[in-house]
């Protein structure tokens, strides 16, 4: 098996963001970056297939500035075999432009599976994986939380509102990974050492034409500060009164 996993470098979300002076981006000063969570589950999914079949090759691809090498090295430390950086000064917001560059790179790679995260925490668009699937004309299943492979056929579970869909597809295929499929492994020290020696190729990103762009970013209006209205059962009548008269939801 040959598996590609597309991974994005995203800021750690556990901070208060500031808007950069240019107005259409967040200020990156002081931010920590890491692999997008969904993408780490995609890497894990690939590695679990490799654990069962040592002949599997896992290739990770990340588009962005040279800093993405750190994200790629993390995936290599987890156990991926080699990495590709699709170099671009910054990561554009336009999902189709990113998808175009990734599809161009993956097109002739002979991959049986191409894995993506369901969505990136920063852009929060959830489109790149599906777009690559479509651009490559491959069977595509999005947002999967369970995966079984039997020969050239796969069965995946998708979470839908109020239930699940069970989807059958032939390989080669493109899949986007939801949570629930697995828990990502941490790179072991041995992995971190060997990752330094694994191949990491750098190529220019062939970004497609960009039609979607961020013109402005702002912080959402702060919610009014929370208010504790009382303690225990004795506060219930006041709550009901507020829900009726102030919030008007009852």
């Amino acid at each position, binding site marked *: 098996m040959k598996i590609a996993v597309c991974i994005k470098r995203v800021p750690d979300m556990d901070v208060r963001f500031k808007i950069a002076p240019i107005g259409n981006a967040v200020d990156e000063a002081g931010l920590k970056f890491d692999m997008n969570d969904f993408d780490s589950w995609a890497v894990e999914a690939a590695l679990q297939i490799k654990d069962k079949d040592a002949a599997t090759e896992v290739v990770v691809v990340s588009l962005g500035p040279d800093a993405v090498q750190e994200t790629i090295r993390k995936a290599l430390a987890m156990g991926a075999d080699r990495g590709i950086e699709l170099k671009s000064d910054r990561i554009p917001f336009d999902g189709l432009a990113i998808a175009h560059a990734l599809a161009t790179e993956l097109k002739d790679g002979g991959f049986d599976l191409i894995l993506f995260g369901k969505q990136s925490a920063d852009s*929060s668009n959830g489109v790149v994986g599906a777009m690559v699937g479509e651009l490559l004309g491959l069977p595509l299943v999005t947002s999967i939380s369970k995966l079984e492979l039997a020969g050239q056929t796969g069965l995946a579970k998708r979470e*839908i509102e109020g239930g699940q869909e069970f989807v059958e597809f032939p390989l080669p295929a493109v899949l986007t990974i939801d949570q629930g499929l697995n828990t990502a492994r941490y790179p072991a020290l041995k992995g971190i050492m060997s990752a330094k020696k694994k191949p990491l190729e750098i190529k220019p990103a062939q970004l497609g034409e960009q039609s979607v762009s961020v013109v402005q970013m702002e912080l959402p209006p702060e919610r009014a500060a929370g208010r504790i209205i009382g*303690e225990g059962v004795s506060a219930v009548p006041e709550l009901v009164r507020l829900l009726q008269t102030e919030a008007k939801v009852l």
Partner: protein
Amino acid sequence: MANVFAFAETRNGELRKIGLEAVTAARRIADETGGKVDAFVAGSAGIAARADQLAKYGADAVIVAEHAEFAKYNPEALAAIVAERVRGGSYRVVLFPTSALGSDLAPRVAAKLGVGLVTDVTEIKLDGDTVVVKHPVNIGKVIATVKIASHPALIGIRANMFTPVEKPHAGTVERAEPVGDPAASRVVVKEVKLGGGAKLDLGEAPVIVSGGRGLKGPENFKMLEDLAAAFGNAAVGATRVVTDEGWRPHSDQIGQTGRLVSPQLYIAVGISGAIQHLAGMRTSRTIVAINKDKEAPIFKIADYGIVGDLFEVVPALTAAVKEAKSRG
């Protein structure tokens, strides 16, 4: 003039609320610019009967794709027919729901047409010929204003942002034939499992009662079901701890890696208020928190907090809500 195409999602032959929301959002854009609204609906035989409802909410025309294969989601066949219809029309804007189905379908169509797509959109504006939308980024901690320059501009709307409004239009039915044989799709939905039939979906419920680790076990969610039943229009959600423990299905998880919801009322019971949970519910209009720890972060964003033991407060609240409802 901006003509708008709205994908009206159905399930089991019924229009979903978010499908009507797409039509309402489309109507608003068309009215501002003197354009027309074409609603698209697909399903098995008989789905054409839904055209009346789409007309009521503002469709000038209803494009109906009836085929046995459209009884369930058939991603490849649906993407093909939608892309063909969009290509053949002169639409400035194409609207999809940001739902499990819409999130799968919209990027397929965008890639087929080579046009821009932004999902999870909370506001749409047409500024002359420019389509500008608002879209939360960084797990909702930042709001981006995004320009879509392609013709058409594809947009996935966030649930509960465009309340359906009746605005009757002609709703002239036009039939659409599938492109190729839908039965030949490579990706096939073999089975759909849905939880309890008439249960309200989290994305659509005006009221959500949500439980965390404080509930201590699956059996105690009965208490939240009872509170939800007292409201009558409520669904029950959960934190990741709860779904990871298997107390509730994964599809009930609210947060950064679960569902994003913005109901009118969100009642957080035994939930600490971790940022990953807040990411999924902080845009709710009114937030109530019930927690025994007065330092719990959930109280920082709760409009109304009660510090106390949920096992005492929730039953009392259920009784009080029933009482308030019976008084009308």
